[in-house]
């Protein structure tokens, strides 16, 4: 799916030769090792300072960034909320992409899926970190891209909720033949759900399983 050729990003990443295949890939690695930076290159939020990245055989440089981000969409490590209530924040991605907004019941269903026990009309101002994360996951599920880039989607969740959420995502994408590239600190999650695990250290791939 993704192929890195002689890729460097500033002094941070050095990835001479890396494949990321369809399915569920997990990136593990110490804080500051460059995991988020890799994800940002995958959805073209940043471009490598050297080398090329191919997505399904096409050079990322030649793809429209906006289109590409609609196919390969990221859940950021610290998702930002937009002005408005929970409903606005769920549907804003669909609005950006000119897609149809589902009805009330479907939106409420998404909230349930991400374990968020809130009303659609509630403000986002008082949401906790973990709640914001799940709301952002909800809006990503609504967009349902080809590739989900998840940057520590469960970092602010308790073990129990984490398990439920990751289980739900993996089922969701498998059912629809989509892919996930996920950063996590949990070895346990990695072992349990990943098709492939990439161990990142100091901007390099140390090991893959």
């Amino acid at each position, binding site marked *: 799916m993704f192929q890195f050729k002689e890729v460097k990003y500033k002094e941070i990443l050095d990835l001479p030769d890396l494949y990321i295949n369809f399915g569920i890939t997990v990136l593990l690695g110490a804080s500051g090792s460059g995991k988020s930076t890799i994800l940002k290159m995958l959805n*073209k939020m940043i471009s490598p300072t050297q080398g090329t990245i191919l997505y399904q055989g096409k050079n990322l440089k030649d793809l429209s960034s906006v289109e590409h981000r609609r196919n390969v969409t990221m859940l950021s490590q610290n998702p930002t909320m937009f002005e408005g209530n929970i409903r606005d924040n769920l549907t804003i991605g669909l609005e950006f992409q000119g897609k149809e907004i589902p009805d009330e019941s479907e939106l409420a269903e998404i909230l349930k899926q991400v374990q968020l026990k809130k009303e659609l009309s509630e403000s986002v101002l008082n949401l906790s970190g973990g709640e914001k994360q799940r709301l952002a996951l909800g809006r990503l599920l609504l967009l349902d891209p080809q590739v989900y880039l998840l940057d520590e989607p469960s970092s602010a969740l308790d073990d129990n909720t984490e398990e439920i959420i990751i289980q739900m995502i993996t089922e969701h994408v498998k059912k629809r033949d989509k892919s996930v590239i996920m950063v996590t600190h949990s070895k346990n999650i990695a072992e349990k759900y990943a098709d492939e695990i990439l161990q990142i250290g100091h901007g390099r791939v140390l090991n893959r399983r």
Partner: protein
Amino acid sequence: MRGIIDLSVTQVILSYIFVVIVLFILKKRGIKREKEMLISSFRMTFQLILTGYVLVYIFKNPNPFITVALIIIMECFAIYTVFQKFKGKLTNKLKQVIAIAMVIGTISCLTYFLMIVIRIYPWYDPQYFIPIAGMMIGNSMTGISLAVKSLLEGMTLQKNVVEEAMILGASPKMATKGIINKTFDAAIMPTINSMLGMGIIFLPGMMTGQILSGTSPATAVNYQIAIMLGILGAVSLTVILLLQFGYRSFFNEEDQLIQ
């Protein structure tokens, strides 16, 4: 109607009494602003006298080249003032946009206003061309300054929001829409507010000047209405042009935020 009371040099000097009184009060109160007060009074006097001589000469010798040259100087000065105000904060791309917006916005409104609304003859008649150009360029300069300030602030404070929007598949234009709208408001509000208060809260300077120099208030009012609408047009157009192209200067060709 009575004739105009010509103001002699002695009379002008008499009005300097105000400055003397203020200086006296400042001294007594221990407010250390005497220097600024004196310098600004003298500078204002000197600049206006100089301008007076220049205008007297130009009005006596109307010449298309001089008119055009003066407009170019005014534009350059206005653009330079904006650049100075945001020294070190403007990218070259944004500077280009500012200059182009300023020139196109003011010149197009000015041309329409002079040729079609007022219908001056000859087209370069400095008596009309210069003061009206001054008002349009001056107000547009203020509008652009406010717009640039709000745009820079928005792109810094709301960087996360812009980034998140792009992650969700927004084009740069969609991602900056909120900032752009706020910026337009910030830039245009002073002009709108001054129109709202006009005639009730204050008498605009141009109209006051015309009345003092003997023009009938009815004519002065008509001029003021026309020029106010012209200014509104020029300010809006420059700011719209700035925003239409300015937001792009924060992104590269790959639709990524420039760090």
